[in-house]
């Protein structure tokens, strides 16, 4: 077993952190932030009323669902680890929930809890072993782990339907067959998830997470049980990923391994990276960006990917804090002009 002391991905690697929190501590900024949050929620709630187009509603639902996945991954990232297996845990949640609904005819709420619990259980099994690794090796291990989980979905045909997946998944409840209803349902789930994550991050747990990420050795010597904390957060985040997967399967009425592969894990990571990894708002911006952008650029399928790739390079090379840092920089620039 490797040293538990080896440092995790250091703040330096993830870009300057804390700038945002420091600002957020100011009372004035607090109000601005609350107003922004309120405006965002109001916009999301009124979104379906702006137009009657169900396509935009579908987009809204997909954004809301991926917010769950991205913010839950953000929790793991805030402990200093970047999981490339998150979509695998989504898949575990999705398959278990769908199988409980379809094979055992359990009510959706129970099955959803079952799916989340299954993802959490797997995380609890794996977490204590893999979370001992330093950040970069953790990336590599989860990269392969996600692939193994996907391969299990493909191989275990009797349970998962193999590559052909399981189709004809009913709406969670008859009322949710209606797109508007499902949108609000997904939105509520996303808000709950974001609220929960925000609460964790602003609590003493969040402070301990920041300590562990910034300097695991010092944190441990202050009595913070680093591994235990990281496992706890990993388990919670994977359970939320399971919820994401289960809701997505019930939204698409279909589940197959191709939704839970490398590319999907990567998407969740990219959402965090583009939005900014140092604040919970990052993955939310990232989810909106990554779900909407491909739709805006749909006419230029190949070009879209090229542009997308270039954006990734630029963000990682010049803006390690993601879009969030861009806004912070612009603000600083404006402030320096004014003074």
């Amino acid at each position, binding site marked *: 077993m490797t*040293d*538990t*002391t080896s440092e995790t991905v250091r*703040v330096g690697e993830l870009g*300057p*952190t*804390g*700038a945002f929190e*420091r600002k957020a501590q100011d009372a004035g900024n607090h109000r601005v932030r609350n107003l922004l949050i309120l405006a965002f929620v109001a916009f999301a709630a009124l979104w379906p009323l702006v137009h009657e187009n169900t396509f935009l509603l579908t987009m809204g639902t997909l954004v809301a669902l991926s917010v769950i996945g991205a913010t839950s991954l953000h929790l793991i990232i805030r402990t200093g680890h970047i999981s490339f297996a998150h979509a695998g845990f989504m898949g575990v949640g999705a398959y278990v929930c769908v199988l409980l609904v379809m094979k055992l005819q359990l009510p959706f709420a129970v099955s959803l809890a079952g799916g989340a619990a299954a993802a959490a259980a797997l995380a609890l099994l794996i977490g204590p072993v893999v979370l001992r690794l330093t950040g970069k090796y953790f990336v590599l291990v989860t990269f392969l782990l996600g692939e193994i989980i996907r391969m299990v979905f493909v191989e275990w045909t009797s349970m998962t339907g193999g590559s052909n997946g399981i189709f004809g998944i009913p709406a969670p409840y008859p009322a949710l067959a209606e797109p508007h209803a499902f949108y609000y349902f997904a939105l509520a789930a996303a808000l709950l998830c974001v609220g929960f994550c925000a*609460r*964790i991050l602003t*609590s*003493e*747990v969040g*402070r*301990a997470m*920041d*300590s562990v990420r*910034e*300097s695991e*050795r*010092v*944190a*441990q*010597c*202050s*009595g*913070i*049980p*680093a591994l235990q904390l990281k496992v*706890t957060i990993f388990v919670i985040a994977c359970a939320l990923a399971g919820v994401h997967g289960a809701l997505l399967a019930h939204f698409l009425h279909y589940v197959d391994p191709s939704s839970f592969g490398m590319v999907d894990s990567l998407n969740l990571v990219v959402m965090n990276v583009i939005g900014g990894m140092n604040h919970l708002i990052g993955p939310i911006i990232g989810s909106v960006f990554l779900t909407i952008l491909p739709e805006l650029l749909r006419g230029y399928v190949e070009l879209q990917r090229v542009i997308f790739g270039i954006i990734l390079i630029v963000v990682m090379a010049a803006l390690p804090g993601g879009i969030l840092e861009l806004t912070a920089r612009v603000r600083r620039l404006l402030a320096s002009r004014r003074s």
Partner: protein
Amino acid sequence: MSTLLQVEGLTRVYGGLRAVGDLSFSVGQNEILGLIGPNGAGKTTVVNLVSGVVKPSAGRVAFKNEDVTGMAPHLLARRGLVRTFQATVVYGDRTVRENAMRGAYLTLYPGFVATLFDTPAAKRKREAAEALVSELLDWLELTSVADTIAGSMPYGYQKTLGIVIALAARPSLILLDEPVAGLSAHETDQVRDTIKRVRERGITVVVIDHNMRFISGLCDRVVVIAHGQELAQGAPRDVLRDPKVIEAYLGKSYAAARAE
């Protein structure tokens, strides 16, 4: 004076190489013990072994009469044994106060569910931690820089902050790993005063350094190690005259010349 920390036969082997071999010493209540030795003597390994960062290959560490050999650092911290680090590892992007608050985790943390719901117990703990931190910052005259970003402060301040973080865990013994490495003479004197004041709080101190002048002006007793082995133990003045120690520090020829 009762024994607080007892180290017996501590050994650590790295791939056939003995970094620390069969080292024994003890630290009494409210003592300042110096652990000195030339560069590469295995001093930091000793700290790592005692503080649970590295597991010993053999030997025993007892703290407050409890066997704590190989115990994880956070569990040792709960028992009152806390260390600092040689490099200035503070949370560089945070304020001084926030750094100290993080050190006060044991006072502060009310449990997972309690903190999420911010229960009255959680509030009480937070108030206690804030009081502790304010008192510590006050006591070490850091209140004026409490809202400064730690990484932007001079080196000496950061070293002191490292000690504050350790003290915030309310230890009964602290292990200081090279607290004056890289500091100016003036800053070194300040840190020495700080450590002396730490002892006045009833805390036992183990200091690791290779700076003999600093150690001899500070410690009640010193343990000299070289090549992971104990060379001498005793009061600073006696130990520093020991030819074996002089040889280890200054080389054989110098020791021979002095002996003549």
